[in-house]
Each structure stands twice: as C-alpha cells, then as structure tokens.
C-alpha cells in the first residue's frame, strides 16, 4: 500500500469518478465540482505563464513591441459584454477572430480535404499491374463516388440516385463499424490503466 498522500488523494478521486457508473452520488458530485474548479484554475495559471507573460508583458516591457497594444485594445472590447449598453462592441473582436480563422482555413480546407482526397481517389494505370490491386482501387473509387452522392442534397434519394446513395450508406456503415471496432481496444486499455494505478500504485497488490 502506498504511503504517499498524493497517491491516496488520486485513488480517492478515481474511485469517486468511477462511482458514477452506479449512480449519481455525493462523492461523484464532489469530484466533478473539484475537477471543474481545478481545471479552471489550471487554465488561468497556464494562460498567465504561457501567454500573458511571454506574449504580452515581456514583448512590451523588454522587446518594445508596442504594436501589441492594438490586439490588446481589440481584446478589451470583449469586456464590453459586461456592460449591456455596450455589449454590441464585443462583436468586433469576434469578427477579427472569425475573419482571420476563415481566411487561414478556407484555402487549407480546399487543399487538404478536397484536392488531396481527389488526388488519392483517381484511378491510375499503376493499379493495372495486379488484379487484386485493381479490384481494391475500384472498390475504393465506388465508395468515394457513392458516399459523395449520398451527401447530394438537391435530389430526392429515389431511382438511380437512391440506389447509388444506398451503396454510399453501406460504405458509411462499414467505415463506422471499422472506427468503432478499432477504438474499442484503445478505450479498454485506458480502463486497464486506471485499474493498474489502483491495484499497483495505491494498494500494491500487483507487481
């Protein structure tokens, strides 16, 4: 059994969270509210040390990067939400964040989610050297096309379109089954990890 008080604290909190599986109870509630509080406190302290000091205080004081006053003034407008009469001003920093995010993301999405996927799907003569490769590539090609048709919104899923969309949904279910099955082992290993902590680190029952 461990003599470290911190291990006992961790074990108590672990069991409190696990008790939720039985039903909601004061131990779980205590752990939940404590977790939220500690996570918020952690976020504040990390923001202070990893953002406010190195990205604002030091550049201003020592680096003389006075241009940072501009985003600070924009950021301060968030606080206008605290005064209902001026709450509309908080839209400006939101617009800044969204606009920049959209400008950065739009070409990247086209490049990564569209171009790369199309490039990977197009059949080439390289598949013809092996019948099994050719079959597999065609299976993949049909999957991509039928899934795209499934997400086609302008036509009812009837007739030919309906038939292709049906193939698409089969492919989607295969993919979801694969993801589900693939993830099970990873999740189970997390659970095993927590039991190992309780049985080995805390109680010393495992070697």
């Amino acid at each position, binding site marked *: 059994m461990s003599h470290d008080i911190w291990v006992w604290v961790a074990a108590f*909190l672990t069991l409190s*969270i696990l008790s939720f599986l039985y039903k909601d109870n004061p131990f779980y509630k205590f752990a939940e*509210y404590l977790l939220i509080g*500690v996570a918020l406190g952690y976020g504040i302290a990390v923001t202070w040390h990893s953002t406010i000091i190195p990205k604002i205080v030091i550049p201003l004081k020592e680096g003389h990067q006075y241009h940072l006053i501009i985003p600070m003034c924009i950021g301060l407008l968030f606080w206008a939400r605290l005064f209902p009469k001026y709450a509309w001003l908080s839209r400006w920093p939101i617009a800044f964040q969204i606009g920049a995010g959209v*400008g950065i993301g739009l070409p990247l999405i086209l490049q*990564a989610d569209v171009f790369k996927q199309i490039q990977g799907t197009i059949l080439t003569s390289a598949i013809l050297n092996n019948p099994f490769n050719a079959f597999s590539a065609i299976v993949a090609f049909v999957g*991509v096309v039928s899934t795209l048709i499934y997400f086609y919104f302008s036509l009812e899923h009837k007739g030919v379109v309906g038939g292709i969309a049906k193939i698409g949904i089969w492919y989607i279910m295969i993919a979801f089954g694969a993801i589900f099955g*693939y993830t099970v082992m990873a999740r189970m290993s997390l659970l095993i990890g*927590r039991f190992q902590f309780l049985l080995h680190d805390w109680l010393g029952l495992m070697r």
Partner: protein
Amino acid sequence: MRKLVPLRICLVCGIVMLIQFFIPHNYSQTFFQYALDWLIVCGVFAVVIGLDSNFRLHLTRIIRRKKGWGYSLITMVAVLSVAFIGIKFGIGADSLFMKIYRNVEVPMDATMFSLLGFFMASASFRAFKAKNKEATVLLIIAVLMMLGRIPIGYFMWDKLPNLVEWIMMYPNMAAQRGILLGVGLGAAAMQLKILLGIERGWLGGAGD
C-alpha cells in the same frame, strides 16, 4: 452600423489572411506570425468573460443557498486557490501547482476517459439489437475489427487480420474520403458565406 462594422472587419481580415496563403515571401511569413500573435493576445481577454459567467453561476448559488451550493463553494475555492498557487509560485515541474495537477486533475481526467471502456460496452450491447440492416453491417464490421486485432481472431481464421486490414484500407478509407470531401466542400462554402457576410449567425442578436 452595429452589424456592418463587424462584417467589414471579418471581410478584411479574411481576405488578408487568404492572400497571405499564396505569398511565400519572408515578409508574408513574418506578417503571418504577427497575425497569429495578435489572435492569441486578443483571445486571452475573452477568458475574463468566461470566468465572469462561471463565477456568477456559482456565487449566485452560494449566496442564495440554492440546492447544491456547497459544491459550488468547492469549485470556487478550487479555482481561486489553484490559480493563486500557479501564478504566485510558478508552474514548474516540481511546483505545488504541478503536484495538484498531476494528482488531482490528471487522475480524474484519466478516469473520465476510462469510463469510455464501460460506455463502449453498453453502446455495443445496444448496437447488438441491430434494428435495421445498416446497424447490422456496422455491428458485423465492428466485431470483425475487434477479432482481427487479437490472437483469437487469427486462431479462428488465419486470413482474418488481412481481411481486417483490407477493410481499413479500402472500403473504410473510401467512405471517410467521401465524408471528408463533403465536409470540406460544406465547410469551405460556409467559410465563403461568412467572409462575404451572407452567413451572419455568428453575429448573434441584432442588439441594435
């Protein structure tokens, strides 16, 4: 005016960052770094709004002695003490702050994550009921995936791991590609509409 200015800010910022993507020049890369720093600096101030909302929620419960006010007190004490310890005494590897993080938050985070092991079992049990053909396919493939990655699967049929790998590489990847293509087009369309002010949901209410 109250909607027009944010829409124009969104448009200008968006176009500037869009153009930047195509310019590899040193000046452009430096500008991009500055822009990222500006976004981070600007975003930090939003944390205060979140904390204000959270503190109001808990303090209201404590002051009015609403149901569960004791737990809200725990949250408030935890936030303030952990934040104080971290800011005052540092967040180095051997600090009290990191001890609290490693022995309080990390075990609870990991345990929440591990609850997925139980929830996966209950979700699988529900999926076993297989209400329709599509759910049956999902179930069969999931079981094949699980069996294909453990020794008993190989014992049952030595080609099972190869089949599982083939399913992962071809039909699974094909469907994911199709979904990604749709998502990519949808997201790009939405971003374009936001940039041009056609999609205005993010502006919130009129407030005018």
